């Protein structure tokens, strides 16, 4: 079968070259894949990634979103579920304006073109993408932490979910949006998520125990 060489590796001639520093990972399923698990804070748009973008401007039919990359991404107003030329996205009783948060995926993202985002998937359904609601808190973490949190059966997420009800959106560009019932709870969650990058599992459990004791 075909071997997949992921981020951090590049094909050169008959062999592979490493372009980033980090841990080499291997996956045997599906034909085998190798990639380098590197750590960085700066995001580079990649096709298919789900990210959180901030609307910075409206230019005609297109929104300009800041995704943390080198260029602002463009998002057409037709790229939402059920949007037509006459029916502009008017989600959640507030027309999409500057400063709103959008969860979408990249349709086009390479070094030669301006990145384009859409809020529908290939079958035309929104499946959770689109404008993110009111309130909540947006903050930035490193990309490695995001991938750790998105791993299946992540312990951090499981521990946090026992605390209190909250909503969480993770963007691959390092941005996390959290919303809980009170401001205090939201801020606690933010602090834990930011700090758990450098905490060991035990320290984290101690911190959570203190909180649930309160």
């Amino acid at each position, binding site marked *: 079968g075909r071997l997949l060489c992921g981020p951090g*590796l590049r094909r050169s001639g008959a062999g592979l070259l490493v372009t980033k520093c980090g841990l080499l990972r291997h996956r045997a399923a599906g034909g085998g894949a190798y990639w380098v698990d590197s750590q960085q804070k700066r995001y580079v748009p990649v096709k298919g990634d789900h990210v959180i973008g901030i609307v910075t401007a409206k230019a005609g039919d297109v929104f300009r979103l800041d995704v943390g990359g080198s260029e602002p991404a463009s998002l057409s107003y037709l790229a939402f579920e059920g949007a037509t030329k006459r029916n502009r996205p008017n989600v959640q009783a507030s027309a999409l304006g500057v400063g709103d948060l959008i969860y979408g995926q990249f349709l086009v993202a390479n070094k030669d073109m301006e990145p384009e985002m859409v809020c529908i998937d290939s079958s035309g359904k929104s499946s959770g993408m689109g404008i993110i609601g009111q309130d909540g808190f947006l903050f930035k973490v490193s990309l490695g932490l995001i*991938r750790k949190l998105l791993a*299946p059966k992540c312990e951090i997420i499981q521990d946090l979910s026992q605390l209190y*009800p*909250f909503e969480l959106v*993770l963007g691959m560009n390092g941005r996390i949006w959290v919303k809980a019932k009170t401001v205090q709870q939201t801020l606690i969650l933010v602090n834990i998520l930011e700090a758990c990058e450098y905490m060991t599992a035990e320290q984290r459990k101690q911190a959570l125990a203190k909180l649930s004791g309160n």
Partner: protein
Amino acid sequence: FMQRGLDSQTKKQLEEEEKKIISEEHWYLDVPDLKEKECCIIEERSFLSCEDLVYGRMSFKGFNPEIEKLMIQMNSKCKEEETEVDDKMEADVSDEEMARRYETLVGTIGKKFLRKRDQRVLKDDDEDEDDEVEEGNSNPRPSKRAKKMFLKPQD
């Protein structure tokens, strides 16, 4: 140039000349074709295809029920490796009942499309059945049983 009335022969000659001119102008490499090696390595820049990542939107303890539904949907898709979930939808009507209903349905709809004469015959049959079932009932309308023949008007 479009020239009417050109013979087919002259046309052919013109075309051939054009082709010659074009093929001489075309540059081509005098190098033998490079053998394309079968590339068995695919390059990808995204982590999604390498690692098994969960969907990014989550909700816990019922904060946002729509997203919780979505979570179950998306994560079950990933885990089952997109095996088609062809679970038999629980039918509202059981198969037997469906067959029964269908039987009677065919009869009633069939009656609708019968011609008038046949409808009358059907009616008689129905009435006969009814009479057999009901005991001690005087025969209503016996005259309708016999098909009406043409009666010549008496002068």
